[in-house]
């Protein structure tokens, strides 16, 4: 086995290790990675989402440590001995190599102006930098970002999210000079100004000094003015980390960076350099796509391949402060004789430019600001003949409407991972990738920035792949389609629906799904008549089935607020029925170990004491957690308990595709953990911030900000719309996070529907919720009042009160816990466990 040492564990180093590990099936290489950051590689491109709720864990690209791969974090390489072929590290390690890869990245450039190193001056590169900026922003009112490039605007947005007034100072005459032209820059400045970020272009910072009154910083500008600020973020460019290479005697580029050839090899044939540390033909790329391409080339070369890197697409599409900005191909029209076609609609906030060849037939590049939906179609067309009138392509509908059909096989659909339309078609036809997840897995297309996902769908359709959305073998329709059918036809029963629109008698997949649809569209009690036989395990007896066939009972405790009298009732019921009690994760009390036939007696006691069903058994709203808010807390800014109770009582009993949880925090300290909920609310000085799409479970996700500073009535209107839209359009058992992800346009589209009513259905969604609220009745009280429903709650039809003989308990920590069920009656056939 040969030794590969990789210096640097950023995105590009990670990509190299991942690619090599996946393809090195003969175990030719043992890989050692040394990285100086205290954690393994993370998504630096998405760094700003750290301010929008993502945790370091969310950003992580995953730890590749495993057989054949050792990763040392917190370990800085200090020297390369090319003769001995060793790398030394700060902790005294010496690592021998057969091949070495420099993936050391870059450092933010801090101009040597006086005062650049004062406290409260930051750069924007690592998670530690972001933590430092967050700390400086505590109590700060004004922040200045020096540098109006792509990262500078992200930093400005970060300041905004931290509640700091943000200014941007840019030396060039307009923002993002590397990517866009003056016209686009002017529009971008307008759009950014509207968001409360003040932009100062065409001016340099000449010094940072004390303000006359002593507190904070005064930035002296070259235009004769000054800016006072509490913190400063430098974002004026990067410098390749080539110090190890220089010390080791490797060739470096004129403007820095380790010189590499088309095989990504340095002047030492055993050493490669990739990413922002490398200079290819003198160019240092500050983007992820070229770095990934270099990593792939080196992985291929290490395994004897002949891949080359011959330059990279520097196209970018971003959403900066909520403004779409895209630049692709020869955006600045530097090709000899290039022609421009420009639409500059300042009133509508759109700028679009196409750069064409001198005969106006071939697309060379372009710029889009304000609306970049055409990017996915236009960028792959660079170098191809135009399919029509260029002006038509950049009208609001033109470019987006033009489909995948127009593209040649050589068109690069995913520029982040260099995947062509031809490669996607091959994956579809030869590797059986018939949906978007399979295409992602096969080709990596759509796995980085995701802007090409709509194109992936188009290509699947164009290649004749019908995406199956059938609910199960009995219904060819998707859940969302069944919702529409039920609404349009006023179908009230499963039998009628399957007779008219399905086949067979149904199953454990379609029956509960249809039961849920009928219930959320106002179908009456879930145990009424035929509906009783449709319900999933827990809904069948309005309690949660546990491993020994007994049930747990969870009365509703809205917002977690409960009186001493009610607490005593719960204690008495638990004692009298010999139930195990536990506080749940959702601020309620779980009573375990009730036998089926005991449920009515238990609930009768609870209902008499004023409790109602907590729907812990249903795909329905569960809890709305709360902190104590302004009533008790020294830090609270709003009444979180009052709001949590109002929300829980409003949405109780609401059936949905998956269980729903919520929480309300009374201040930014977030004690209710609202951002791990399907909808979470956090108080601000001005009102309430609404977050959506937080999920626990198998794939945990933090909720993202949907709308800010809402008054309570607006907040409730938005939640009504959000929940009803989810109920109507989600797939069976689809949680809110994957639902939002699967929406075309994702969170932005959701915001458009919920906040801007872009589909014109807001009123209807609200009306549906009003109906739900009006029709709510406690499910358990209704069971207790109806002998037909009560008749279901028996142990045996021929011995209604005989307890199930297989159930028994032992005592653990003074409480009953289940024995492993005794298999009395012993079926004659072996169980799965016994068969093994």
């Amino acid at each position, binding site marked *: 086995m040969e030794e590969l040492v990789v210096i640097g564990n950023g995105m590009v180093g990670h990509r190299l290790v991942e690619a090599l590990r996946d393809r090195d099936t003969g175990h030719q290489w043992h890989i050692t990675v040394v990285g100086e950051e205290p954690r393994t590689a993370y998504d630096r491109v998405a760094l700003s989402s750290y301010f929008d709720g993502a945790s370091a864990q969310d950003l992580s690209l995953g730890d590749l440590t495993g057989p054949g791969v050792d990763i040392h974090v917190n370990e800085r390489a200090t020297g390369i001995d090319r003769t001995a072929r060793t790398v030394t590290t700060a902790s005294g390690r010496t690592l021998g190599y057969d091949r070495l890869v420099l993936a050391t990245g870059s450092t933010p450039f801090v101009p040597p102006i006086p005062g650049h190193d004062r406290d409260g001056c930051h750069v924007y590169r690592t998670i530690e930098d972001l933590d430092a900026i967050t700390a400086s922003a505590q109590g700060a009112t004004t922040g200045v970002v020096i540098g109006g490039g792509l990262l500078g605007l992200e930093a400005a947005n970060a300041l905004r999210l931290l509640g700091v007034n943000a200014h941007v100072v840019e030396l060039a005459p307009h923002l993002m000079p590397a990517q866009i032209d003056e016209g686009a820059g002017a529009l971008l400045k307008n759009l950014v100004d509207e968001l409360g970020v003040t932009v100062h272009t065409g001016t340099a910072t000449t010094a940072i000094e004390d303000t006359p009154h002593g507190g904070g910083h005064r930035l002296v500008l070259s235009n004769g003015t000054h800016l006072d600020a509490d913190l400063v973020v430098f974002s004026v460019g990067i410098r390749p980390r080539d110090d190890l290479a220089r010390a080791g005697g490797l060739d470096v580029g004129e403007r820095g960076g380790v010189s590499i050839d088309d095989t990504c090899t340095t002047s030492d044939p055993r050493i490669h350099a990739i990413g922002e540390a490398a200079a290819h033909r003198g160019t240092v790329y500050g983007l992820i796509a070229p770095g990934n391409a270099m990593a792939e080339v080196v992985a291929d070369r290490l395994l004897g391949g002949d891949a080359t890197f011959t330059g990279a697409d520097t196209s970018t599409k971003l959403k900066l402060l909520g403004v779409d900005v895209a630049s692709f191909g020869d955006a600045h029209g530097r090709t000899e004789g290039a022609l421009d076609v420009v639409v500059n609609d300042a009133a509508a906030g759109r700028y679009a430019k196409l750069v064409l060849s001198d005969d106006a037939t071939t697309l060379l590049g372009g710029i889009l600001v304000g609306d970049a939906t055409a990017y996915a179609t236009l960028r792959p067309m660079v170098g191809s003949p135009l399919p029509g009138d260029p002006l038509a392509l950049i009208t609001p509908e033109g470019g987006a409407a033009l489909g995948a059909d127009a593209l040649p096989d050589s068109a690069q659909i995913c520029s982040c991972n260099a995947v062509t339309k031809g490669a996607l078609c091959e994956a579809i036809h030869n590797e059986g990738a018939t949906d978007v997840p399979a295409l992602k897995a096969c080709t990596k297309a759509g796995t980085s920035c995701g802007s090409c996902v709509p194109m992936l769908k188009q290509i699947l359709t164009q290649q004749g792949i019908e995406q199956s959305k059938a609910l199960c*073998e*009995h219904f060819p329709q998707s859940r969302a389609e069944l919702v529409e059918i039920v609404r349009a036809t006023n179908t009230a029963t499963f*039998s009628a629906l399957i007779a008219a629109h399905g086949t*067979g*008698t*149904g*199953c*454990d997949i*379609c*029956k*509960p799904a249809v039961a849920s649809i009928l219930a959320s569209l106002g179908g009456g009690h879930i145990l009424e*008549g*035929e509906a*009783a*036989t*449709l319900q*999933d*395990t827990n809904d*069948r*007896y309005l309690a949660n*089935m546990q*491993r*020994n*066939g007994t049930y747990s009972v969870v009365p509703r405790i809205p917002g977690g607020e409960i009186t001493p009298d009610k607490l005593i009732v719960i204690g008495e019921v638990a004692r009298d029925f010999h139930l195990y009690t536990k506080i749940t994760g959702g601020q309620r009390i779980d009573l375990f170990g009730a036998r*089926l036939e005991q449920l009515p007696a238990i609930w009768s006691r609870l209902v008499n004491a004023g409790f109602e069903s907590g729907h812990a058994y249903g795909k329905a709203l569960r809890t709305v957690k709360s902190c104590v808010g302004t009533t008790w807390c020294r830090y609270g800014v709003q009444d979180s308990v009052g709001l949590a109770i109002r929300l829980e009582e409003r949405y109780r009993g609401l059936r949905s595709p998956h269980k729903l949880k919520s929480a309300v925090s009374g201040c930014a300290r977030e004690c209710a953990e609202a951002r791990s909920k399907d909808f979470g609310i956090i108080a601000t000085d001005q009102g309430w911030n609404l977050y959506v799409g937080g999920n626990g479970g198998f794939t945990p996700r933090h909720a993202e900000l949907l709308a800010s500073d809402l008054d309570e009535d607006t907040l409730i209107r938005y939640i009504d719309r959000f929940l009803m839209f989810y109920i109507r359009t989600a797939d069976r058992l689809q949680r809110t996070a994957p639902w939002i992800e699967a929406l075309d346009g994702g969170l932005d589209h959701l915001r458009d529907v919920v906040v801007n009513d872009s589909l014109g259905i807001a009123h209807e969604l609200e009306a549906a919720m009003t109906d739900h609220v009006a029709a709510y009745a406690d499910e358990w009280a209704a069971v207790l009042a109806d002998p037909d429903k009560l*008749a279901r709650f028996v*142990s*045996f*039809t*021929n*011995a209604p009160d*005989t307890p*199930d*003989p*297989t*159930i028994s308990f032992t005592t653990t920590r003074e409480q009953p816990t289940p024995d*492993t*069920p*005794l*298999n*009395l*009656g*012993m*079926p*004659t*056939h*072996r*169980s*799965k*466990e016994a*068969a093994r």
Partner: protein
Amino acid sequence: MTTAPTQPATWINACPTHRLNRADGAAVLMPDGRQVALFRTLDDQYYAVDNIDPFTNAAVISRGIVGDRAGEPTIASPMLKNVFSLRTGQSLDDPAVQLTTWPVRVHESTIQINTRAEQGTP
């Protein structure tokens, strides 16, 4: 494979037909202490299989969802959603697992189950 306890084949009363809805199930306690899950399908066929789920040993099969797979009448265990044929008791997910079945009949509006199980019904 063990054999059924030796006893005369007799029919025991489970419940009146009106107590078991279509596409629903109920548990029945047999004289020998065994538990049977009794089902009625949409087309009024009656079936009886073990009430104990062989994958978890919990006595809950009667609380599952009645349906069909490609026309074969089925019951899905509520515990881990394993699906069994109501006709044969065969697990449709694991060829090694099968539920015992019992003969069922309706006698003067009463559903009756035969105490002698049809073991290994094909």
